[in-house]
């Protein structure tokens, strides 16, 4: 069981025929999904996302709400404390002000959206980096 951990999720909005993020034809594709120990496997993602028909190479959601719901569900089912969601657009803005690895570690915290699990737990080292 994983306790007191933070997960980071980088996603990209893919426009499918529409012109802006409001279009119902958009997709939210997960680009990076990791915790302090490494990338989170597709198997683990599938376990949480249930019977969703996942593409073999990537994970996509129809709406941002679905993406957020998935992240929250993942937090709760795996005993994580926080999830940081960051879009590639915000990543690209944030990266302009990062000059080294130390600054880069804060990019999810500084430019992303923080989701908190319902349970409150003491923080791990990885968690402290983001606080």
């Amino acid at each position: 069981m994983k306790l007191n951990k933070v997960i980071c999720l980088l996603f990209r909005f893919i426009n499918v025929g529409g012109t802006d993020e409001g279009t119902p034809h958009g997709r939210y594709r997960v680009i990076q999904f990791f915790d302090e120990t490494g990338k989170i496997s597709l198997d683990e993602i599938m376990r949480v996302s249930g019977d969703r028909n996942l593409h073999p190479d990537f994970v996509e959601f129809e709406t941002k709400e679905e993406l957020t719901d998935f992240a929250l569900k993942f937090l709760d089912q795996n005993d994580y404390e926080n999830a940081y969601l960051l879009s590639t657009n915000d990543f690209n803005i944030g990266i302009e002000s990062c000059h080294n690895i130390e600054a880069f570690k804060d990019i999810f915290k500084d430019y992303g959206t923080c989701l908190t699990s319902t349970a409150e737990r003491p923080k791990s080292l990885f968690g402290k980096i983001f606080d």
Partner: protein
Amino acid sequence: MLDTGGSLDQLTTPELRNFDPVFPGENWFFYWKSSPSLWEEKLRQYPGMGPLLVPINWSLHSEYPNQYDFGAQKPETDLHKLSECALAAGKQIVFLLGLTPMPFVSNGGIPSYLVRDLSLDRNQMALVTVDSAGQLNRMYSFFDPHTFQAFRKFVRELGHYFTQKGISFPVCGLESLRFDGSELVSYFKDYSRTFENGFNRYVKQLQESEPEKIQTLIEQPSYEQTLKQEYEELVRSLYLEATKEFLSGHYSGSFQASFIGSASDDLFARSFQIWENENDYFLQLFHSVVGQAYPSSLLLNPHMKQHSFGKAIKDIVDLPLLRKQIDDEYYEDDSLLEFSPLCFFHLVDLAGDHYSYEKLMSDSGLEYFFNKKYPWSYRLDKDIDFSHEDENQNTVYFFWAQRLNKETLNKVLKLFMHGHHVFLDTTGISEEVKRKLEFFCAENNLNTQKINYVTSVQKISLGEGSLFTYEGEFLNEVSLNKRFDFWQTLIGYLNLKQLKIDAENGVCFFWKTRSSNSFELNYQEIRRVSLYNPTSYKKKVHLISTNNFAFIRSIDEVNTNLKSTPIGIDLVLLPGGSVTLDYGYYE
């Protein structure tokens, strides 16, 4: 103070300094990281063999628009002095001029006054690399017209300077490559708005110059990818032409270097060192050799190169690999007696879109087959290269007919007639190419055998050469194991000789070969395999005795136990262990 015979006792433990940022690895020399007064001494002391690779740091020489410095203001920009130092130290230099962003310098090497739009990868993520000191280098688009104009002016000044000062060392165009999964992709490739804007201008221009292309675009939206590829190649050629024009006497071809640790995944892995994995870097190293790029570890933290990966870099990124990139004809006669990567198969791309090519390889099951049976003993060629002809008559070529036209088919048939083995996936073959192939067989009254095995396979023979055609689309419909059996059966016809290695998961190995010398007349060829254990567990490897191979020696044993038995060689590689074994091949 203690009298220590003239020297002072050090009170602290001396820091072992075995990494010099001026020489970050694999013969690279970063002149801007050292005082010019030290250049000659450093070059003289450098123990490596072969020419030094000196990338020209554009941003260092042009801090302001239309102003160029080659030693007049900042001594570290004096490339003439650097050349003189190299000559005095008895070293050869190859200057490298970045024709793409360079991942090892700030802003990819472009001057700060040109920094505008970040270059993006196919996931719309900014291209960023971490260098060996943990600094982030952001890449900026080479599709910005301002960047091209400034590049052209800079190269003109550089050309004048080289001619005026009589600098004799050659200049190669450096194409830096990054990893996207297992793909090698040029840093030139860009998916940013800057690229899109440029492409839109190109499309507008086509409306007047080639309206038929626009008509095709309207009828087939997927044609946009082809046009984007065309536009990319057009802009790439502008950079190349400017370089050739202004450095005419000095320009000595292109140099492709891949940078290990440059993948987007690596950025995250290296930020949280816990999941930085040496094994991933092994894969990037091997992929570089397969992709015919010169692998560079200069972005990696030196600690990553302290164990088996560092050993692998030294074993694989050697002088012959460097010479191959710089196309040094002077050394050609020696090359047969030097080890070079073993290659049985050439997979010929014939198109610029690497992502679809990897998919073809993967869908056909070839990638899986090679990884199991002939790991890393194949090459990806962009074009048909007839220089392989003399290498080995048994070289096997793979082509995908959907990428062939009449001219390229002629080249394929030429390889076949010269006695090579050619595999041709006929999926998506055009009527023109199909007719040409049928006509060729009928005209030459060739011996043709047809079998149905997973798909319809035709074997055409002519002398030593054989041409296998198959319908690859049917391979996709069967399991990976069946695809493996298919390739095993077909490749089995060719009777390729290779030793079998049973290695536990996590062990990496790489084969090289060379001709035998006058002391090894019992053998036609010497094959060398280097094995590495980057894991933190003990690993067992068994090299199975095979006809036509004789074990000669083991060298460079590090944390390895070797036992020779009648059925082969048993190895136990301890964590970080490595060993190299030589085998003689005889017929």
